């Protein structure tokens, strides 16, 4: 399914990540998944949160640069080959993956995937 992901531009300085999580805490927003892409100078924090619009507004008001993007979220069985099958379906449909992050527990794996075509990817993978 297609879900909304919130990205935040972070300067590579100590305390910036704490600050964002504190702001979200105070706004009573839950973070269910996250990943950080980092370069030498800055990082991009990507999150799946409980209320994306409210989170975006709260962070913007605190002078953060944020962006909401469509990503897909899929659930696969937690067994060898499950991820490769999902990715093969995307590759066959010529849908590019920019990045992904995920975790597994209780026999299920959940993945957040940024693709070049979220709608089609979501159709393919359910």
């Amino acid at each position, binding site marked *: 399914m297609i879900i909304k*992901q919130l*990205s935040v*531009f*972070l*300067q590579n300085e100590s305390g910036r990540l704490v600050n964002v999580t504190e702001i979200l805490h105070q706004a009573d927003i839950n973070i269910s998944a996250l990943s950080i*892409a980092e*370069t030498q*100078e*800055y990082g*991009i924090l*990507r999150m799946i949160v409980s209320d994306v619009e409210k989170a975006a507004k709260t962070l913007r008001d605190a*002078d*953060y*640069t*944020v*962006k909401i*993007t469509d990503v897909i979220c899929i659930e696969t069985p937690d067994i060898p080959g499950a991820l490769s099958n999902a990715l093969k379906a995307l590759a066959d449909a010529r849908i590019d993956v*920019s*990045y992904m992050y995920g975790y597994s527990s209780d026999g299920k794996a959940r993945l957040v995937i*940024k693709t070049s075509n979220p709608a089609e990817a979501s159709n393919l993978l359910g």
Partner: protein
Amino acid sequence: MIWNQPRECMSRDEMTHLQTARLKDLVQRVYHNVPFYRTKMQGLGIEPADIQELGDIVKLPFTTKQDLRDNYPFGLFAVPKSEIVRVHASSGTTGKSTVVGYTRKDIDTFSEVVARALASAGATKEDFVQVAYGYGLFTGGLGIHYGAEKLGAAVIPVSGGNTEKQIQLLQDFGSTVLACTPSYAAYLSEALEDAGIDPASLPLRIGVFGAEPWTQAMRQKIEEGLKITAFDIYGLSEIIGPGVSISCEYQDGLHIQEDHFIPEIINPETLEQMGDGVTGELVFTTITKEGLPLLRYRTRDLSSLNHAPCQCGRTNVRMAKIFGRSDDMLIIRGVNVFPSSVESILLDIPEAKPHYQLIVDRKGTLDTLEVQVEIDDRFFSDEVVALEKIHQKIKHKLESVLGISVILRLVEHNTIARSEGKAKRVIDRRSL
């Protein structure tokens, strides 16, 4: 509109005649009333009688900011202290501040030149002028204030800062003219956007901006952002304050109030006087000032002069928009870098905001230039590849124009201080 037709549109012969008479009078006054100038002139072997025509000005000594500091606070005043009705002082970020004093007549002159400036920008007695320059020791606030009153306009003396209040007054009072620094005007236009206020819904129509160098590109950006026509007002407290010169509706240089200030362009190295069209250091002689008259004051501002007649009808000489300051010029690895060129490059790149800071440092024996730029919200991406592309684009553009390698740092929104007075664009950490 031309405020003072006889003074702003006289023939070159008349102007020369007037300036010569006033210059001769000035030299008499400073020779007899200011020991500093008498000593300097005697050192050069000249007396007041040696100044007979305008060209003789090159015989006179220069005055520098250091001279004002050395004579802190009132050492260069040419009248008894009882004649002084107001004192202003520069911020003095490096060393002692420079103090300037005005007689009653000086305040009248100051008001007159600012009234001419506001009229040149198209303001009339019908206008409401929101003065968002700081009031206080800085000449900006009170200078524009008195000039706007002389013009007959209504003054809103809100002073600098307090952006919410500024916006509220723009809306509630319907200010039609805004006077502040260009960097604050740019900030205000962003604040309007953030607040979701359409600038076209405001009665504001004219901006009179000065006190720091800004580029044509910045002017266009402010004009679009605030939906106004922006004018460049130039001045410095040592000469009088804002109003020494002003752009007109043709936006091709700033008309200097030559009946009060004789301009020259000199080569800052050889100190030789340069002709029209040559860029050099701007020098002023204040021929009517009483409190603190100055001979050939070196402004450190880089400009050029143009005596060609202007389509607006004014005949007084125009100076080119300030290109930079000879002492702001950074020499990095032997290359001359002007902060103003960084500004024009960034204004050409939509992904960057025109807020920037330059940090010059020395790593070992090598000078480094770090340019900090805020990324525009609309171009922020969740993908590193996309941000790196923007990073490369800005870096490449800066390097190809400046001719040296730069460390580009994309920074978070609103991390670079917006100035309410003068923007601090450069931090030089090199200890030489």
